[in-house]
């Protein structure tokens, strides 16, 4: 491993000042950054360890009814916060469907948003990758790409964003609170991650030195608590990234959909908010036909980037199921196999 400087700032301004130097990287849980460093995928010269900044560790209820989650809150702590899980059950379910218990204990809110793609060519430093080396080319095109994007990709990059957490967050209009040299600013999560276009190396709205300090959920995000599900299809029952996932939340009144939120994971370089589908759901009857047309709308622009056409059909079906499950109602308790299609197997139903 390359030598690097290690800095542990005492305050947020110190952290930002330290990280503004070129070649710096924040260290939170380290579950992604350290792997990337060990593999030579990234080689920061300076590590700014924010993991002990106390003010980033809190979950605060805001006066306007919203919620502010500090960037260093651990994925496990957030999911197991009873009040949080009650108000935003699909977010808790998504968190608990990710990685393993050990990783969730270490991984942070900010780190989860900023985790890099799992595209194997991004990790394989002998392969061409526009994300790693701008202009180098994209080895995933024409390579082993059955897990790659079906929405929003470009010829420069077909990678996906792998987070589960971000999928329900983007559906619930989460906002990223960023502090940088210019002070504090808010960016919606929907706008936070960038599609690759011609510049896949630019993945998000952060400028050098920018620190995510919190993620906010607006007041109305809690209004979906009764009818919200996250569903994740993967290649083993646990401890696998999503092939495709969906977060669906509804407010249903007298059989009519009064509000709808829908987002997809594992399909694009960002958590994919399906606004056209939401528009179609709004005011419609909550039934399978509606859900099927919403699914078609959500995937209307999808196209395979390689050997992955199956993901489009899979995504459609997942959308229908997620909406159906949301309509059926949030389960009383989080299932033992969170977000799994098998979460309802009797006997496996106990608290996660």
């Amino acid at each position, binding site marked *: 491993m390359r030598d690097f400087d290690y800095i542990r700032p005492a305050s947020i301004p110190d952290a930002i000042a330290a990280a503004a130097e070129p070649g710096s990287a924040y260290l939170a849980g380290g579950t992604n950054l350290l792997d990337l460093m060990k593999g030579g995928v990234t080689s920061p010269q300076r590590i700014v360890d924010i993991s002990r900044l106390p003010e980033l560790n809190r979950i605060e209820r805001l006066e306007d009814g919203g919620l502010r989650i500090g960037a260093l809150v651990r994925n496990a702590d957030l999911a197991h916060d009873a009040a949080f899980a009650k108000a935003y059950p699909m977010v808790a379910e998504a968190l608990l469907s990710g990685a393993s218990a050990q990783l969730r204990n270490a991984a942070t809110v900010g780190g989860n948003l900023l985790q890099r793609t799992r595209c194997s060519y991004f990790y*394989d430093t002998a*392969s061409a990758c526009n994300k790693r080396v701008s202009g180098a080319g994209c080895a995933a095109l024409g390579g*082993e790409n059955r897990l790659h994007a079906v929405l929003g990709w470009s010829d420069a990059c077909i990678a996906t964003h792998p987070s589960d957490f971000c999928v329900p967050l983007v559906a619930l209009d989460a906002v990223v609170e960023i502090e940088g040299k210019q002070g504090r600013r808010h960016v919606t999560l929907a706008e936070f991650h960038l599609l690759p276009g011609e510049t896949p190396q630019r993945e998000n709205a952060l400028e050098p030195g920018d620190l995510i300090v919190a993620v906010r959920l607006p007041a109305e995000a809690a209004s979906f608590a009764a009818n919200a599900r996250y569903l994740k299809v993967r290649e*083993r029952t646990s401890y696998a990234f999503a092939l495709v996932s969906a977060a669906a939340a509804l407010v249903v009144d007298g059989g009519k959909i009064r509000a709808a939120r829908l987002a997809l994971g594992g399909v694009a370089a960002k958590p994919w908010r399906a606004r056209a589908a939401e528009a179609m759901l709004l005011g419609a009857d909550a039934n399978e036909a509606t859900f099927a047309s919403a699914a078609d709308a959500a995937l209307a622009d999808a196209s395979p980037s390689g050997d992955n056409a*199956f993901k489009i059909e*899979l995504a459609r079906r997942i959308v229908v*199921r997620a909406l159906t499950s949301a309509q059926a109602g949030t389960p009383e308790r989080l299932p033992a196999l969170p977000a799994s299609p*098998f979460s309802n197997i009797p006997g496996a139903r106990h608290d996660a």
Partner: protein
Amino acid sequence: MTLELGLNQQPAHLRQGSSIGQPLTRRDGFLKVTGAARYAADNHPPGMLYAVLAVSSIARGRVASLDIEAAKAHKGVVEVMTPRNRPALAMDPDAKDHPFMFRLDLLQNDEVRYPNQSIAVVIAETLEAATEGAVLLSPRYEELPARVGLDDAESFVPRGVGVGNPAVQHKGDVEAGLKSARTRIEATYETPAQYHNAMEPHAIVAAWDGDRLSIDTPSQGLAMAQGRIAGLFGIAPQNIHIRSPFLGGGFGSKGMISGPQVLGVLAARLVGRPVKLVLRREQMYGPVGHRAPTRQTLRMGMDGQGRLTAIDHHAKTASSTFDDFFEPAADASHTLYASPAIATSHEAVRLDTGTPLFMRAPGEATGSIALESAIDEAAHACGMDPLEFRLRNYAEVEPMTGKPFSSKALRECYSQAAKAFGWASRPLQPRLMRDADGFLTGWGVGTATFPALMFQAEARAVLRADGSGLMETGAQDMGQGAWTAFAQIAADGLGLDIDQVDFRAGSSDLPNAGIAGGSGHTATAGMAIHNAGAAVVAKLADLATENKASPLFGAGNEGVVARGGRLYRRDDENRSESYAEILTRAGLTEVEGRGKGAPDPASQETYAKHAHGAVFAEVKVDPDFGQIRVTRMVGAFAAGRVINPRLVRSQYYGGMIWGVSFALHEEAVTDRRSGRIQNANLAEYHVPVNADVPSVEALLVHEDDPHINALGIKGVGEIGVTGTAGAVANAVWHATGVRPRRFPIRIEDLLA
């Protein structure tokens, strides 16, 4: 506690002893869960340096340049070993004196023949410095196009497959059998390359003292490793001491010493200091073997009663460009199902990969998933229940050779497992079962089998005047429980309680215990231990029965039994004497006996020797998504005498979970252009997690085998993989109506 042991080692004199048959927990378990067990990489001799491999990122070509200066300039780097300065060897690493001498990449030249091949070794004061030094080498290559897939090279018929079986074999006339058949099936199945992925990476700590070499490294075959290293370095095997008390799994990848391990020894030689070299996870995908990919075509014909008229099993596989190991997949059809005509054949291509090697059930596992799938297709074509079809084609003698089985309790296995599973209520047609939650539910069966092999082993036994005993054999515990099972055999062999026995293993200065592989270690080293025990007890008995002062005087060997540290007269149990009394009277501090374990050539000729089993699996499949979950498995296995049911069961569990892995998860995803493996890590190279194996049951079916060896032991380490993979695949078909033809089964294959 009763143990009776006749001193004449005829099988008829053997009984279930006090230790053999007991479900003892692992004797090394406490050390392992407390972290006190010292694995190879835990050793730090004084002055030790760290070596890190630089490995090739291309599959084929040559290394054009390495920036050795840059690496050496890095703080802490002591030396860089390349073909230019690598210490001389007494033997060409590409020499092959016998089929089991596999060619090694020991920096003999600048050629690259597979990705992750070692191209240099950086030796430094710290692991970090060595790691960075390896990066700084910034290799440049002259690259040639890689040959990656089974269709990328010209195929040929290998001279032999597996351990030297003929590549093409037949009995009867398969074409005639197919022609006369009422029903026929033909299907092609593909299995991917798989990597052993033992939890413990290959690691070595090597220290030279003049021409003497001391090594800590995990090894499934200490004496073979010792011999191989001795040959390479031109030193006497006795000058090499290898310690391998614990292995964090091997599965065949630690059977032969690998190139990187020898590079650790070379690095220590080069710098004149002890050196530690540990493979990174991704570096295990190349130089330490793998299971080769296969494409297998099966043709079967059946008569009007569902009896097989012909089996034709053809397998295409791959070896490396520079060595020969050919996965003997088609040979799976030799032993299981009766048929008047059987033909098996292999062809192979040479690809730019590391040499494939033995991986848990090599050939048996790959062949089994194809054979068991095809048998299922054949049963369905005949409109028969797949269990009934298997029973209809039950082999009373080994189908290919016509030899009788030394023992075969497979019928018992079928019936016990079917009953425990509840097979009887299974509908014949697929896609008919749904559970209350709407999941497609399917049940499948597969037959498990694995040859009961024995190799060569030796053991040394000592009885001491203080009443204790010692048993020594260089056996290897890969985690399977050898420390415990062998101590149990030793205790019974010595006529002592297990806690009176000092059992030593895992070191090359002990008698050669042969290889922990081929599921033959317990039988082979176990028989050596058993015979060594008998030999030392016989000596002790001579001391007593020939001495007038002994209450056993005149009893003769046949007339005494050894039990609990005493010898008893068989005809009068009131007359006995303790080991300590006998030795003290004779003025001896100890007596020694030696024993060997080896297959009996006469019974080898006469009998076919195999363990058998039946595995039933239930899967649930999401009807919309095709996501699969194995919800239940029941296996029943008959493998001769069970030394320790707890350990044996966990071997079956592990094997069955490997079967699930084979059917549903494992695959080295290889870039079709570069030949580099894209998922060389445990996040993306999937194996089952706990949630994938909710309920696994293994039933031990009683089986006496009077021919196999005096202890009646077959092997249990690999059989669980076979049968299971097919059972899962067949259950997926039964659930969905989609016949899996490539493995692992992918979601897209089930998205109807």
